[in-house]
């Protein structure tokens, strides 16, 4: 019956609740229902109709805002909406917030329009609304596209371009990083990993393996090539496998469970080979992409043998330290640092994944 019902104010009203609902991709009628259930109607004595009109107003404002939200830069300088800075930031933050589940689904997928169409599967899987998924997809894509080719710190870039808060910027940085290296993330083996684990792994890698010097020609999203090449030298450890094993066993004997120790004793060769092959192969981008699969492979060995996480951690420590004690590495400073760099990330990732 109502043809037009518009409420416009000089300073756009932003209702956090309704905005949240909008961001979550609820339709207006859903939002009205939610609000009503929350007792808004009873509190204020407003009829459903009123709430609906209010919600619709808000939705309209937001949909007008959406264009601007997609480009926060514009939002800062636009004239159409007089929003105070705090609210502005809040809006952006809310808009760019995402659900880990959804993002997990998006990881490893090409951010193409084809995949965008398939978002309904994601929506189904995660139980989030399609709209919300789309928004998240678009956000990720947008952030990725803008930041991808940009020199300088990825986090800083995101922060300055999208006016996002620290935490959120970090998350986006991880996503972008994952997408840049194109790590294999969607294999079944890796399916169990949550976004949070991914984020931790990524942070470790980004911290250790990427170029530290930030300059115009260095990208935050690129691996430290020299370091990866250096890793090839770790082959030497394969030759010294016996020494290494000896030291590890010596070190771990009092600490490990008997069963695990025996397992270690038997399979040390297998383990060390897996780890070292990974290390030596990382300079190949294909292998780098499969890093996590390889890691999962390694983990499988341990899992099969029922290692507890504690023991596993001990092993990694020992493995790391003992290698350093071997003279080849001990004497070669660069090799030593590479090894440590490698192992720090590896142990971190493995532990997270375990």
């Amino acid at each position: 019956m109502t043809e037009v019902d518009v409420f416009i104010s000089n300073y756009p009203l932003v209702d956090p609740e309704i905005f949240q609902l909008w961001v979550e991709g609820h339709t207006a009628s859903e939002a009205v229902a939610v609000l009503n259930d929350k007792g808004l109607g009873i509190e204020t004595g407003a009829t459903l109709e009123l709430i609906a009109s209010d919600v619709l107003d808000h939705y309209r404002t937001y949909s007008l805002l959406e264009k601007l939200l997609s480009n926060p830069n514009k939002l800062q300088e636009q004239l159409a909406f007089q929003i105070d800075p705090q609210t502005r930031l809040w809006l952006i933050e809310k808009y760019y917030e995402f659900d880990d589940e959804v993002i997990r689904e998006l990881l490893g997928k090409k951010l193409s329009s084809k995949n965008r169409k398939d978002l309904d599967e994601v929506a189904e899987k995660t139980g989030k609304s399609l709209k919300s998924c789309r928004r998240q997809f678009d956000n990720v894509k947008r952030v990725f596209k803008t930041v991808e080719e940009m020199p300088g710190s990825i986090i800083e870039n995101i922060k300055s371009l999208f006016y996002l808060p620290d935490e959120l910027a970090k998350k986006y940085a991880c996503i972008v990083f994952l997408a840049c290296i194109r790590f294999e993330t969607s294999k079944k083996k890796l399916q169990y990993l949550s976004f949070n684990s991914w984020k931790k792994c990524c942070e470790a890698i980004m911290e250790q393996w990427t170029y530290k010097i930030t300059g115009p020609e260095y990208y935050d999203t690129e691996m430290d090539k020299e370091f990866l090449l250096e890793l090839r030298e770790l082959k030497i450890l394969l030759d010294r496998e016996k020494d290494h094993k000896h030291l590890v066993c010596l070190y771990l004997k009092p600490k490990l469970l008997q069963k695990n120790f025996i397992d270690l004793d038997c399979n040390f060769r297998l383990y060390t080979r897996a780890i070292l092959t990974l290390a030596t192969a990382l300079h190949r981008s294909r292998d780098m992409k499969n890093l996590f699969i390889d890691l999962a492979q390694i983990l499988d060995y341990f899992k099969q043998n029922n290692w507890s996480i504690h023991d596993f951690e001990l092993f990694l420590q020992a493995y790391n330290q003992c290698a350093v004690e071997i003279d080849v590495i001990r004497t070669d400073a660069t090799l030593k640092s590479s090894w440590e760099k490698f192992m720090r990330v590896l142990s971190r990732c493995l532990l997270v994944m375990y």
Partner: protein
Amino acid sequence: MPGKVKVKISSGKNLPVMDRSSDTTDAYVEIKLGSTTYKTDVCRKSLHPQWNTDWYRFEVDDSELQDEPLQIRLMDHDTYSANDAIGKVYLNLNPLLLPVDGQLVKHGFNGDNTTHHEISGWIPVYDTMHGIRGEVNVTVKVELFSDFNRFRQSSCGVQFFYSPTVPQGYYAKLIHGFVEELIVNDDPEYQWIDKIRTPRASNEARQTLFFKLSGELQRKIGVKALNLGGNAVIGYRQNYDLEGESGIVARGIGTAVTLVKTANVSLPLNSVFDDAKEELKNLKYSQNSLSKKMTVLKSKLGESIGEEIDEDVKMSKKKKPGESSVMAELLARSVIQAHNSLSCILEVQSSSHDENENDDDEDTLEKLEPIANLLSKTVSEPNLPSEASESDSSSSCSDFEYDDETLEYTNSNVDLETISNIVKDVEMIQKKNKVPLLKQVSLPALGPNRTDSLDSFSENVFKFPEVTNKNLSIFTTCSEDNLLSQENNFLSDNYYVEDINTNTTSDNNFQKPNLEQTIEQEKNEELVHGISEVIKEVEIKEKGLIKTAMQAMLLEKVSIIGTYTPPTSPVYKPKVESPDIKPQVTAETAIKLTDTPKTKIAKSASSVSFSDYLKRNETVLGAPFTSLSLSSEVIKRQKSQPCLSDNVKSCESSLNEHKSRFRFLRRNRKTSEGDTKEHKSIISRIFRSRSEKALVVEKECKEATESKTNPDTSLPTPSSSVLTDTNNTPCNLSNNTPDNIKIDQGYNCSKNKHACITPDRHNTSASGDQNGTRVGSPEHHKMDHSPARLSSTPCIHRRSSDSDLSITPKGNSLTGSDRSGGNPSGHFMRNNVVLRSQIHQENFDMLEYPFLTMTKFSPGFVAQIGGVVSARSVKKLEIISNADEPESRDTWWSELRMEIRSHARSLNCNAVLGYSESSSLCDDICVLSACGTAALIDFHCTEESDELRQNTVKDIMSVSLERDRTITNSNNKIFDSPEHTVNNQVISNCTITHLPYDSNNVPIKTTAAKCVLCHKGKVPEILIATIEPPEGIPSTGKGCFIDSYICRPLKDAKGESIAKEISDGLPFLEYELHRLLINKLKIKGMNAIFGLKFRMSIGERMIIGIATGTAVFLSSLPSPVLPTLVSDQMTDDKKLAHIQKRLNDTVKKNKEIYQIKDDAQNGKVLSEDESEDEPTSLDLSTGNKDCCVLEVDDPEDEEVLRLLMEERPPEGFHVVNTEIVPGLDDLEIIKNLQMFTQIYRVKFHQSYNISNHFQRLLQSVYFKLRRMVPCALCNLQFRVDLPETDEVQLCVFGMALGLGKPQKKGKAILTSKRNDEDLIFKLDEDPILENTTVLNQNRSLKYKQRSPSKYRPQSMKQRHVPHRDRFGVDITPLSYVPGGVIERYLGNLNFFFIRETTSIREEGGLSGFIHSFVTEVLAIVRAHVTALGGNAMVAFFLTEIVLLHNLHKNQVSELLKV
């Protein structure tokens, strides 16, 4: 006055992609003004083009400038196809044509004329098809060449204010009257060419046309205003009737006024400042010589007088660079004099104002002189030096004074920089002072002094507001407390002065062990003690008569202070103290007594008149002050009467002594003698004589230039000089000064009795001679009574009218001092200025339509409100054959206006206020309606006094008694004819509610009741007006929004028949509306409606009328009778009783909610002529009765009843449609929250229950603003349109204002406040400018202490609970920015937007479309405002929203202003 327009296009941004293939745009710009077009280069392949063009120059005539908008069109260059338009920017150049306020004046003293008025900034590019498409950065400047062609068609410089009140910072000197204009043009939408051109082209043509029409309209109205002698148009409204095929009719109405910027008055002050400084220097340099001269003069008495006169003349000449400057000078002088006296007498006391210390020093020096001279001693001699020194110091003092003020104000703003500046200034001045000082006496103590002063500076200044606040609050407290509290204040003053006192005392001692001074000092201290004692137990008795007299004086002065603005009060306080300290000299008391006696005598002699005065005072001053004045009154009476005889005697004796001395003195004495005689006989005579005296004064002035100055000098002196005989010279000085002070005060604080009496004295003394000879005439005696009355009333009226305006004190003081300056013509001129917002009655009467479109007036302007008058007519449109002569439309409106006028006349009113016109169109039927409030404008008073003076000037030589008499008679007639007016007006301001007409003589049946407050005047049972509630109207409780809607179906007819039907139906509709409104009002328990707005709209099937208003309970009106239910169906008794009960409950509840304290008596006072309570006496013929009785005949009525009872805005909302919320005691508006627009369009079905929709609309507004509670919704405006047969479109505009508990939170808030303004105004305003605004605020504050004040001073502000710094552009439909002060009016803006779309689906449906459209419009408006350098827009409104759905087309035209 041709003008040169310079345009520069620097860059664009966020342009749309016009070239699909490359995703860029090759943009260039076309700039068009009039017929000239320029193009910029093409900026290839960029969405953010940089053109950085040179200045494009247009040389156009100014009329063209006014008519034509500057069109800036962004284009996309295409190599092969035609270039595409991106969008357009229309720049209204009118704001640039306005004089930059203060600019001219600034030139003189700042020397910076770089601040050219310009538009500069990012402005959204708007396209009628796509909305905003990017922004363009434009800078536009206009240079005007002056041209004084009398036949010009342009009206540059006429300011237009959409706000229906006198804008802040201005005051209306003259209200000239109604201006209107009407232009007809073809609507491009309906031209044949439209059939072949693109929608965009036609839209743009239309938009351009609207711009042009608006410009032309405005220009023409401006010309009319200029012809009337005005310089601005207030309450300007533009309306467009889109008559379809027959074209567009653009109408504009407004009120032409002569606005004077209050700042303008003050600005010259500044310049005068400088002048004064220079003068000061000169004076300083010449001081020595002067003093020498003086001594010489002293030896030669007669000569000296002449010389002095010369001096004076010089001074006065110097001080006459311009009127304003003179005014400023005079002001300064008056203030100075006060200061002077202060400093001279109090010395230290002044330290409250540290500068005073300097003054002190100077003064001491000066004093020393006279004292030294005294040794040689001639009685009259001291006069001269004192005078001279006075004048000297006056200039210096003026500097100080102003510095002081500025300091205070700036301080209050917590602007450190300015403070420092001022401090520097002060230092400078101090140095200057120092120079002479050093010459004369080396002052070792000066340095410390100064530092002290500086230190205490800030402290004091900070303290002051508080103190003043205290004062104010104290004033409100009961009368007895007054004494004590005031003394307290003094004490406190004294206390923190004391420290410095000691310093200064030492100083003084250093300088000269002057006995007198030390004595003074001692006295000072003594006084402090004494006051403290007084506090403990009023020890008036101890000190005896003197003290009592002093006390009385004190009280008077205090009351004066009270009435005066708080910030300035400190200045006056010292004055108040001065009398205190003076008493050391016994003669002093006599002086005071002489001053007071006159008032007292007046009182005693004619206690009647006096009481009248008092009452008037009360009314004028408002409740808080009444108690005070009363108390002072009582005290005075008690004490004065014993003193009286003494005083008189002393006066006489002294007079006798002086007889031989001076001619004027003689005169003086005579007059005083005559006075005393008269006192004995009749007081009224004084008044009589006063008027004559004025004549005499002028006459004198003309006759002898010497005498010109003579009265000046003599006037203050006479009484004092009389006393000087008995006393020594210091007292003479003091005498002079107190007198002066008093006079000044009297003028300044025109509210006090002094205002009336001091001038009297003044004049009497001056003109004594002539009087003496002439007064004797028998005519005089005969006439005694009437003139007295007459003269008293004008004064009062003036007072009341003055009361709210900052300018008045100045003006008054000007007159006062000016008079003393003795320049008759100037005096007359000044008077003109003083009489504020006056209307020349003759002019006004001659005006065709005595209409004012303003809705808000200064108190006292409106004497009585008659009621709402309205007229409507139904017309059938015909195609206008000749667009140049829109005769038919003109005649339609003039018919309406005539009708309104005759209505108003029949109500015995002389003006229609809050006049508005509207029209509604449907097909070829047009309903025109005009509406206003008939009221009696109170221009007699101002007029009268003016006339009197005029006459006096004209007929100086001839005895103007007869003339006078006739005038008075006529005046009396004027006063008497409206029943009771004279009496009532004098008695209380409830008169405004009194009926201006005799209830028997009016063709309308009304019930009148006795006024509850005064029991004299008759008041209507219900008062309805279209204006804002006048300030000071006696109301209780809160106001609330009230509305009624009627919808009537129309038959399906065409042409004449439908027109007939509509016109037949209109009265019924109106009646229904009225009835509903009244009923609602009753249920709300209120008895008056303000801000009433009617709106009619016709559609194809129905006609809708809405009436909205703000209900208020006026305490002077009888409380409404409880509605009673009547039913014909007796079966329903039970139900009926039930409903009745519910009804009563709601009424009760409403009363509670709106805090109406309803005394039971109110009801009883109701006139007995009809017993409304009886349900049986249902008689529809009497208009008012059925308003109290609700008929419940059928379920429908029941429903109506239910409607009447429900709908109360939720908690925390205060809803009104006026600009301020009446009766908000506990809360005040502190923040501009939101301007909102709600557009609501709904299918409308057969039931035609429109109120449901309105309810729904309001509720949704409440609901949407729920997070802003507590807030006030102000200025709600409704608009109804019937765009389709079955659709109704409602629009609400309004303003949500944040409310908060009033808290006195001095500085913390000031800073934030300050920041706001700094944002935009760059601090280029002069401190003085600010001064006046603050002054303004404070002045008004007093009156609106409880109501949300428009001029809410910064000192009482608290941000709204959700703390948010102000940013962006505030847009408000109100005429003021709550929580802000309007620093500058930049000009008015009109916008017209047409928006069309073919993709309504994608834009989120119709709602989404409108939403984005209105948002964009607001954005554009804001951008324009920002580009003009403003940060707020007031009086914003959408005039028209035309929405054609089926065409996917939508049009809005808007008018708005900054």
